[in-house]
C-alpha cells in the first residue's frame, strides 16, 4: 500500500516535470480557461443587451406620429439610429446588418386614427438574429399595447373617470412575471455560468486524453508501467492528480470571480458550488479517460471523439434551446455529458437555492461518470502491454 502511494507520487512528479516541456499544454491549461473567464465576463458586462439599433420609417410625418415615435424612443431596448421615409431604404440597412428592426408608420395613419378607422402600424424584426429580435419584439409588444391604451385612457379621462377605474377597464388583467432566481433576466449570469465552466470541462477532457496518449506517442508506456509496479490505478491517479488539483483550483477561482467579485446570484453559498465544481472536474476527467479507454493508445481518435462530443455538450446542456424541446434520442444523449448535469446542479443550487436532494440524480450521474472508467481500466493495462502508438 505504502509502496503504491510512493509510486503514485513518483508518477505525479514525473508528470509535473513533463508539463514544463510542453508549452502548448501549459497555454491550454492556464491561459485558455482564464482567458475565457475574462472574455465572457467582459462580453456580457452589461447583462441584458440594451439600446439595440433599429430604424423608424415614418411615412406619415405628422405631429401625431411624431408624438408616437417619441414614446417609442423611450423604450429600453430600442435605439432608433435611422429615421427615414422610405421602407426600402430601411430594409437595405437591415440587409447590410446595420439595424435589427424596423418600425413602420404607413401613410394615412393620423387620418385613420382621427376618423376612427383603426390604422395599422407594423414592426419588423430580423429574426436571423434571434436574441436581438426577441428583445426588440418584447419591447414592441409592450409599447404597442400601451399606445393603444393611451388613446382610450384619454377618451375616458375626458368623460371624467378616475384613474383606478380607467386602469381597471383598459387593462383589467395584469400579468406579473417572475423569472425565478434571476429577476433582471441578466443573460450574463446564466450564460457565463454555462459557458466558462463548460469550456474548462472541454479543456479537461482534451488534456486528459492528451496526457495519457502522449505516453504511447513517446513510447514511454512500458517505462510508466514499470514505475507503477504494474498497478494500473497507480498510473491513472498519478497521471491525473496534478491536473485534478490544477483544474479544481481554476474552477474555484471561477467560482470566486462569479459569486464573490461579480456578485452573481449564489443561493447555496460559495463553498457548496466549489464542491460541485470539484465534482465536475472529476467527471470531466472521467469522461476523457473513458473515451481514451474506448480507443486505447489511439490518442488522436480519443481526442477527436472528445472534441466532437465536447463541443456538442454546449448545445445539449439546454440553456439557450431547452433539452425538453429536442427529439427524444437527443434528450437521452444529453445525459452522458458532465456539463448537462453540472448545469442542472447549478440551477438547482446557486440559482434557485433548492435542496440538493432534488438534484440527486445529477450528482449521482457526475459521480457515475467519474467512476465508470475505473471499471474499464483493464483496457489500459492491455494497451500498455500490447499496443503501440498509431498515428
Amino acid at each position, binding site marked *: 500500500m505504502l509502496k503504491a502511494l510512493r509510486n503514485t507520487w513518483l508518477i505525479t512528479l514525473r508528470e509535473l516535470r513533463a508539463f514544463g516541456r510542453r508549452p*502548448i499544454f501549459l497555454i491550454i491549461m492556464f491561459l485558455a480557461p482564464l482567458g475565457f473567464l475574462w472574455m465572457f465576463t*467582459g*462580453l*456580457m*458586462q452589461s447583462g441584458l*443587451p440594451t*439600446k*439595440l439599433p433599429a430604424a423608424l420609417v415614418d411615412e406619415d410625418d405628422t405631429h401625431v406620429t411624431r408624438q408616437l415615435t417619441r414614446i417609442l424612443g423611450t423604450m429600453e431596448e430600442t435605439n432608433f439610429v435611422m429615421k427615414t421615409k422610405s421602407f426600402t431604404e430601411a430594409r*437595405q440597412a*437591415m*440587409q447590410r*446588418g446595420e439595424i*435589427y428592426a424596423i418600425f413602420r408608420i404607413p401613410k394615412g395613419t393620423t387620418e385613420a*386614427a382621427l376618423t376612427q378607422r383603426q390604422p*395599422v*402600424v*407594423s*414592426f419588423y*424584426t*430580423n*429574426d*436571423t*438574429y*434571434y*436574441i*436581438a429580435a*426577441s428583445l426588440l*419584439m418584447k419591447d414592441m*409588444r409592450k409599447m404597442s399595447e400601451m399606445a*393603444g391604451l393611451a388613446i*382610450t385612457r384619454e377618451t375616458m379621462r375626458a368623460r371624467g373617470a378616475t384613474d*383606478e377605474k380607467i*386602469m*381597471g*377597464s383598459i*387593462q*383589467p*388583467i395584469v*400579468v406579473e412575471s417572475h*423569472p*425565478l*432566481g434571476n429577476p433582471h433576466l441578466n443573460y450574463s449570469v*446564466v450564460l457565463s455560468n454555462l459557458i466558462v465552466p463548460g*469550456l474548462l470541462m472541454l479543456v479537461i477532457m*482534451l488534456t486528459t486524453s*492528451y496526457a495519457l*496518449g502522449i505516453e504511447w506517442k513517446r513510447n514511454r508506456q512500458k517505462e510508466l508501467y514499470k514505475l507503477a509496479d504494474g498497478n494500473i490505478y497507480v498510473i491513472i491517479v498519478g497521471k491525473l492528480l496534478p491536473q485534478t488539483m490544477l483544474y479544481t483550483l481554476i474552477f474555484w477561482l471561477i467560482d470566486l470571480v462569479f459569486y464573490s467579485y461579480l456578485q452573481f446570484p449564489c443561493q447555496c453559498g460559495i463553498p457548496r458550488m466549489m464542491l460541485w465544481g470539484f465534482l465536475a472536474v472529476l467527471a470531466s476527467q472521467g469522461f476523457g479517460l473513458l473515451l481514451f479507454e474506448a480507443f486505447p493508445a489511439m490518442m*488522436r481518435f480519443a481526442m477527436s471523439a472528445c472534441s*466532437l462530443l*465536447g463541443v456538442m455538450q454546449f448545445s445539449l446542456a*439546454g440553456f*439557450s*434551446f431547452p433539452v*425538453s*424541446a*429536442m*427529439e427524444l434520442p437527443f434528450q437521452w444523449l444529453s445525459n452522458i455529458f458532465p456539463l448537462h448535469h453540472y448545469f442542472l446542479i447549478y*440551477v*438547482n443550487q446557486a440559482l434557485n437555492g433548492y435542496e440538493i436532494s432534488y438534484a440527486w440524480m445529477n450528482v449521482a450521474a457526475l459521480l457515475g461518470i467519474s467512476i465508470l472508467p475505473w471499471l474499464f481500466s483493464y483496457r489500459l493495462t492491455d494497451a500498455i502491454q500490447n499496443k503501440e502508438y498509431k*498515428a
Partner: protein
Amino acid sequence: MKRPKFPILHVWLDELTDIVKDEGILIFIILLPLAYPLLYAMIYDTETQRELPICVVDDCMSSRSRDFVRRVDATAEVKVAERCTDMAQAQELMRRREVFGILRIPAEFDQRLWRGQQAVVGLYSDLTSMLYYKVEYLAVINVAQEMNRHIKVKEHQATTTRREEQLASWPIRFEEVKLYNPAGGFAAFLIPPVLMLILQQALCLGIGMSMGRSRERFRGLVIPPSKHYKNTLAIVLGRALVHFLIFMLMAFYMAVCVTRWFGLPQLAHFTELLGFFVPYLAACTFMAMFWSSFIYRREDCILLFVFMSIPLLFLSGVSWPGASVPAFWQVVGSVFPSTWGLNAYVRIQGMGASLGDCRQELMALWILAGVYFLLTCLFYMFEIRKAVGRTILE
C-alpha cells in the same frame, strides 16, 4: 507515377496523396464537415418549445379564472400539466422539475374584475432555459391581452355596432412581422452561422494536423528535403489549394444540401455564394496555415483549435447581439474570418442581401486573406532557409 513538372502542382499532389492516406486528417476534413452539420441540424430541428408543462394554482375558482386557464392551456406554447391547490405544492413540482412554470390566479381575481379594478396574475418561470421564460410569458400575455380587450368592451364601454366594438377594443392595430425567420425558429437562426463556423474549424484542424504530421516526419521542419520545395509561393499555394478545393465542395454541400434537407433559409444565388465562399475559404485556409506554424505534434492542433469554436460564435455577434459586444472584443474578433464570414453568410443566404450589401465584410475577408497569406509566406521562407541550412550541414 510520373510527377508533374511545375513545383506548384508537385506540392499540390504531394499534399493530396498525403492527406488521403491519413485517416486522422480525413476525419477532420471529410467526416467532420459532412456529418457534424447533420447532427447539429437534428438537435435544433424541432425549432421551438411547444407544450411546455406548467402548473396552475387557481385560488379563485370562478368561471372566469377557469376560462383564463383553459385559454392558456389551448396555446401552442404551454400546456397545463398539473392543477395545484396551493403554492407549496406547485413549488414542490417545480423543484422536482415536473413543471417549468407556475401560473397563479389570486382568490380575488374575479371579484376585482367585477368591481372594475385591476387583477394581477402571477407567472413564475424556471430559468433553466431562457426559452422557458419566453414561451410562458408570450402564452400568458397573449391570453391576458385577448381577455382584456373583451372585458374592456363588454363591461366598460357601451358600443352599438360590431365595428365600433372592434375599434374600441383596438384603436390602433399593430402588426408584428418576423422577417427572414417567420416561425421564429431556433434552427433557422443558429444553424447557418454554425455551418460556416464548422468550415473554419474543420479547415484549422485539418491543416493543423497535416502540419504536425510534416513536422514529425521531417524532424521539426514543415517541408520535405526535396528540390521541389524551394519556391515559397509554390509551396504555400500548392498546399492551400488542396484544402481550399475540398472545402469549396464542403461549403456547397452545406449551403445547398444541408440547407435544403432541413428547410433552412436559402435565398442566395450560386454566384453570390461563390463570391462569398472564395474570400471566406481563402481567408480561413491561410489563417489555418499561419496558426498551424505553432504546431509541432499532430495532436496539438486539437488542443489549439477545438475550444475556440464556442468563443468565436459569441465574438461574431450572431448569437450575442454584435452591437452589444465591447469595442475591445470586437477588435479581437475582427482578426478571425469567422466573425465576418458568419455575418455575411447569414445575410446573403438568410436575408437575400446582395454581395454589395456585404461589401464591408467581403472587403475584410479579402484583407484577412491577404494578410494571412503574406504571414504564411514569411513563415515558409524562414522554413525553406532552415531546410537549406540543414542539407548543407549534412
